[in-house]
């Protein structure tokens, strides 16, 4: 059970870090696109 709970915390942390980083990169690319205009 402890391992399942550990998987929940590690898994959700991993997913949020990956998706959060991707969102930041996309935001950055969008900023670069708008700056050119």
């Amino acid at each position, binding site marked *: *059970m402890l*391992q*399942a*709970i*550990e*998987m*929940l915390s*590690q*898994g*959700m942390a*991993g*997913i*949020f*870090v*990956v*998706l*959060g*980083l*991707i*969102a*930041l*990169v*996309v*935001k950055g*690319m*969008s900023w670069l*696109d708008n700056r050119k205009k």
Partner: protein
Amino acid sequence: MDLSFLWQGILSVTWKQFVMYVVGGLLIYLAIEKEYEPALLMPMGFGAILVNLPLSGVINQFTAGLGETPGIIQWLFETGIGVSEALPILLFIGIGAMIDFGPLLSNPKLFLCGAAAQTGIFMTIILAVAMGFDLKDAASIGIIGAADGPTSILVSQVLRSKYVGAIAVAAYSYMALVPIIQPVAIKLVTTKKDRAMRMGYKVRNVSRRTRILFPIFVTVIAGLVAPSSVALVGFLMFGNLIRECGVLTTLSLCAQNELANLITLLLGITISFSMKAEDFVRPETLMILCLGLVAFMLDSIVGVLFVKLLNIITPQNKINPMVGAAGISAFPMSSRVIEKLGQEADNQNHLLMHAIAANVSGQIASVVAGGVVLQYFANLG
């Protein structure tokens, strides 16, 4: 003259095999009459009958007169899924080529909806462990909540789960039932006022450079944080790069049509190898079907609650809470559900583009979820 061979087959049908004929018939009925994921459920239903015929020639058999004779479905399973997981992984090229990430790239905040809606996976893993499943089987069952058939098959196969067949049936059946499951889950945690919340939509052009760099960055980021997700994310993004690069139109169309159709055709009938009566007809199958339903419900509920929390933290750009439930991978069914519920609450409320953005974010998040689950076991050593 000995004619006993004529009824030898009939007499050797076990009650469990008979149950599988009924299950196969039910899947074929759901696929054809109800149009529930017909591309997968029809081959799976037919395959369930095929592999459960006594001494079926589609699986390896040993007879005194002929010795060992190879079976085509067993060969397909062992080669295409068992040894290499090639079939589910190659399907991701087709899926990636079909997805337009434009709406999501216009509103990157919605990436978080995809992440939040994977919580049901891990909550279901905890429930499955509490019900007595070992951790690897529990993780395979929880992945049903990814609402992503190929990911469910791949993770359960890599973890050598005993329940691959039941997991595949649950994953594809519930994906087809999203229009029934999600409204119930969403209405449990939203008021009519929540559902009527309007969101403005500004059309923002996403540059070609962003569209091309996006799949490359996603692959690198996912690969650095969760290396076990690289096969899944990498092939999904490879398909998307083929689509967006603009110079491989023929390959993109091939991936979206011929490749995806051919693999889907083979995947359904191949996975039926894991639906042999002795593996499928047991009480755990019913428990897995129940847990799969719970996973879908929890994904939707947590998705909605997460957006409500996000609205409290960032009140300047509020999101309709239902959009959080679209963070599952079932595309485009989930987006359509949100649009329909929004219009039921207010007939001028159009949420489709926002829901689609969350929905495609769920497609990335679900493969990342599969990867982080595998990564957890890889790190256990």
